[in-house]
């Protein structure tokens, strides 16, 4: 046990000393902050109208009630604006009446919706209503983004000891460890413990930075139940690369499988969800998703541990062989 703890201590000293691993710990939280801010804003914007200078001032003011207005010199400038990459509607005047210009490739119903709003603006028919703003936990897109970034935080917890395994392979420390009293099992246990503690720390840091302390308990349980998945990721990385260059190339592959595959399950119908049941990271994703919504998903947590454990047992010989550990 003392040997395992000594190795774990070395891991944390390395993390503190090495900028790469330190950065890997805080980066998911920072990314989460940026992405959640942008994704949060993306769904809250309004339509953009590009209006030419000949559009009457009152009509422009009325259009401004429905969306952002960009005032342009003439109809050619409006057409050029509409042709840009984003979806914006143009308004010009012809024979004293407003004409709506759209590109034609916008989302279904865009032209009709924009046209209707210009009609209402032309009639001076601005609806009156009360509004009340309340703080929400976010919509589905935000929930998915948050879940993905929190799973990334846990994934990183596996990648850090994985990189340390690569470093040990590169410097031949692993060979020495194999014949030391600690042995292969002790070495793996030390790495597993590092991954476990890091996944709890990363998740807590991410949750604190995002500001969802109300779900910290649920998230800690989800992170703890990811222990087998993080160790699996660490060993996969450690076994697939023998130097830092290859390790970065390996992360490029392991990451889409570890993170991307569970995300695709959100696009798949309920009937076909069983196709993902063999993946521990699918259950991990489900557990984190539920935690974000404030629920303790005991079944997903258990299955993340169980399927992860089964995979570790199935691959143990291969891991042992690749790492040269007994």
């Amino acid at each position: 046990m003392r040997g395992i703890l000594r190795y774990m201590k070395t891991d944390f000293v390395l993390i503190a000393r090495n900028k790469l691993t330190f950065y890997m710990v805080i980066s998911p939280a920072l990314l989460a902050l940026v992405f959640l801010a942008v994704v949060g804003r993306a769904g809250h914007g309004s339509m953009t109208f590009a209006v030419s200078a000949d559009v009457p001032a009152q009509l422009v003011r009325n259009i401004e009630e429905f969306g952002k207005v960009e005032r342009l010199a003439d109809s050619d400038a409006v057409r050029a604006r509409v042709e840009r990459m984003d979806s914006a509607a143009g308004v010009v005047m012809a024979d004293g009446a407003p004409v709506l210009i759209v590109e034609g490739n916008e989302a279904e119903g865009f032209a009709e919706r924009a046209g209707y709003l210009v009609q209402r603006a032309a009639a001076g028919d601005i609806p009156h209503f009360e509004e009340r703003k309340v703080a929400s936990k976010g919509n589905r897109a935000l929930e998915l983004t948050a879940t993905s970034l929190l799973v990334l935080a846990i994934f990183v917890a596996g990648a850090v000891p994985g990189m340390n395994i690569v470093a040990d392979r590169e410097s031949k420390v692993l060979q020495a460890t194999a014949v030391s009293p600690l042995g292969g099992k002790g070495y793996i246990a030390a790495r597993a413990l590092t991954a476990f503690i890091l996944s709890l720390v990363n998740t807590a840091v991410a949750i604190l930075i995002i500001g969802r302390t109300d779900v910290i308990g649920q998230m800690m349980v989800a992170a703890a139940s990811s222990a087998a998945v993080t160790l699996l990721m660490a060993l996969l990385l450690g076994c697939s690369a023998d130097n830092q260059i290859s390790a970065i190339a390996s992360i490029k592959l392991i990451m889409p499988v570890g993170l991307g595959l569970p995300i695709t399950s959100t696009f798949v119908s309920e009937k076909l969800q069983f196709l993902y049941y063999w993946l521990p990271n699918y259950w991990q994703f489900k557990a984190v998703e539920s935690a974000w919504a404030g629920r303790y998903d005991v079944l997903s947590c258990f299955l993340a541990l169980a399927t992860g454990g089964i995979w570790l047992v199935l691959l143990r010989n291969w891991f042992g062989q690749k790492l040269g550990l007994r």
Partner: protein
Amino acid sequence: MNRVMSLLRQDFKLLLRNALFWVLTVALVLIVVTVWYLIPREQTGFETRLAVYGMEFPGGGVEIVASPGKVEQMVREKGVLGIVREDGALTVVHDGLSKQAVTAFVAQIMPPQTPLSPIQIERLREAPQPVPYNLRFVPIFIAFEAVIVGFFMAAILMLGERQEGVLEAYRVSPGGVVPYVASKSLLFAIVGTVYALLMAFATVGFVFNIWQFIILTVLGSLFYTLLGMCVAVFFEDISSWFLAVVPLWALNMLPMISFSVPTFSPPWIEWIPSYSALFAYDEILFPTGKSLLSVHSLLSVETIAAFFVCAALVKRRLLSARGCVS
């Protein structure tokens, strides 16, 4: 030219030794499988959901609830839009939508007070054929995976050479800066283009303007490779470099949000090079008749500028006597 070719051959061998070929092959297979089998052909899920009290509301994604309090609760918990109608007054409960977006929404659900005059709608081009939902992801994979291969790999090669002292040997050889930069840029322009083409062929098929696609990918890959090298010259080792490129990489991916929500297009996001590239790939693969001359021209200018900046930086920081001392 011979120098460029010989350096190019050398770099290619180095990449093969570091399993790049296998990494890209497996990544390609994963992407194709994701597009064809995991992402559905029709979008499900993300439609706006409404919680309504006190009025009829036709259409999907609507939940009629029993009390105004329940509306507010749903807005808080699920981020939906809430509508409460009491005593003829309408209240919209939301989690931070812009005033204009709410007014536009209310205008669409409340009938006009007077009959509206018809409006002429001018479409700049024919509405394109609808594109299956799964194929909508192909431009994202190409722009954020294939095109940026060089951004990471050229830097890794360069840093590897720096750490192993290869650059010191190169400095006293008759090679020169331009062949050094050109060989790496060309290598990844070829790798990126082949990778992107295979991705497009395997998902969309062969019915798109292949020459336009190749021009865009060559320019994009050259630009990102040069950008990657410009950043890498400031670092001594892979760890410190990784620290700096992850935020850049994440920033580069932000236009994906504008691509998903085309009405969200703040000016700062349009300055990110991947913004125009992403929409340009969409136009090439699913044409609507839009000219891409401006995108190609801008990218050409950016690439030429990046080449000169990169050559100057490599000369100053890597191949000068001062730069090589580490």
